[in-house]
């Protein structure tokens, strides 16, 4: 039994924040230079009353409409999010009901960030191959902007909110290959929201200056950019080689690379270290920003629609980030 991606759609919230808007808030900031480096011109923001669950629902409804998929055919729902609607229950359970998916379907949330889409595909493939499910609805949705401090211009320029929906099935448009996964919890503190959950439920209101001179707020998302950069340059090139080996594919036989769209500067550096040709390496986060677990699905959808990815192609996809966590596989279109 093999597992396939059958359909992909995504949803971006209505509100768009331009670099000009950010510039008004931070007039001393050379926003053009930053935009050129990180590669983001506009990003979408979830409305104040719009949750990751709401966005995931919209992405799923788009998927159903675009591909004529019936909710009753879905027999498993999983949602990747680090901004769930509630501590409990799983937002995926609420989505089962809201989307009209049968009560015989399994459903759960899983908490991952930029590697989340890869892990979702790995688990979905497992469910299909084991005969546990036939049509897995994988949703990825994130509202990181709600975790960002208003003064955190770096992360506000990079991250955009968004959601993606993907149906994994017994047949479809791309066969899901073998996976390479990895984890290093030793780097947990380098990308973290410290308060609000069980370890420190009450906000502390505290902030300090980090190693790089950035203000670090306990109650908001913190990213140690340098540490994450070093981790990425260590983990991703090694993973790329492992993905090739595990799938028995030569580098020359990969037609296109869709890596997690972290930011343009990081992607360019990874591309150079991995010695990958520019024309085979996807970089496009201009109008979305880094949407965390949704970047790979958004990119795949865009590439399919634009004809960049077509039948017969081998496409390597990878995700890497918060956890620290990483994963990759090859899709055979």
């Amino acid at each position, binding site marked *: 039994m093999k597992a396939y991606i059958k359909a992909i759609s995504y949803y971006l919230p209505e509100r768009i924040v331009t670099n000009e808007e950010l510039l008004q808030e931070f007039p001393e900031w*050379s926003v053009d230079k930053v935009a050129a480096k990180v590669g983001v011109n506009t990003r979408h923001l979830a409305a104040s009353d719009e949750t990751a669950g709401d966005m995931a629902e919209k992405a799923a409804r788009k998927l159903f409409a675009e591909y004529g998929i019936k909710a009753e055919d879905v027999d498993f729902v999983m949602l990747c999010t680090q901004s769930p609607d509630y501590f409990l229950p799983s937002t995926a359970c609420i989505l089962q009901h809201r989307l009209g998916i049968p009560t015989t379907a399994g459903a759960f949330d899983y908490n991952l960030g930029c590697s989340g889409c890869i892990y979702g595909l790995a688990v979905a493939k497992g469910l299909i191959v084991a005969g546990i499910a036939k049509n897995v609805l994988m949703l990825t949705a994130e509202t990181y902007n709600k975790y960002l401090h208003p003064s955190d211009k770096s992360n506000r320029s990079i991250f955009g909110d968004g959601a993606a929906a993907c149906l994994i099935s017994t047949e479809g448009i791309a066969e899901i290959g073998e996976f390479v996964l990895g984890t290093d919890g030793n780097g947990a503190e380098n990308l973290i929201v410290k308060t609000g959950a069980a370890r420190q439920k009450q906000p502390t209101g505290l902030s300090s200056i980090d*190693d*790089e001179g950035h203000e670090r707020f306990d109650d908001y998302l913190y990213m*140690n950019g*340098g540490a994450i950069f070093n981790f990425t340059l260590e983990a991703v090139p090694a993973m790329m080689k492992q993905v090739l080996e595990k799938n028995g594919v030569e580098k020359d036989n990969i037609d296109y690379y869709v890596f997690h769209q972290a930011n343009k*500067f990081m992607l360019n550096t990874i591309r150079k270290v991995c010695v990958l040709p520019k024309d085979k390496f996807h970089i496009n986060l201009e109008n979305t920003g880094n949407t965390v677990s949704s970047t790979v699905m958004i990119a795949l959808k865009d590439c399919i629609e634009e004809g960049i990815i077509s039948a017969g192609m081998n496409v390597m996809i990878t995700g890497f980030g918060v956890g620290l966590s990483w994963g990759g596989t090859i899709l055979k279109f």
Partner: protein
Amino acid sequence: MELQEFISAFAEQFDDTDASEIQADTNYQELDEWSSLTSMAIIAFVKTAYNKEVTGKEIRSCETVEELYNLVASK
């Protein structure tokens, strides 16, 4: 690892600063163009050129290019 090589590669991480402005004794954090993004570029350059990890904190702890070179060379 050679100082002169390091300096010229270091200078390449800047977009608007002329390479001639960057010497062994240049206090790089005082350059107009210096920012956390340049620091990120230095981290990437050290990792890719020498396969060594330098942290943002270490980059901030050095004053001159030569000091940073010595720190990287000692790793």
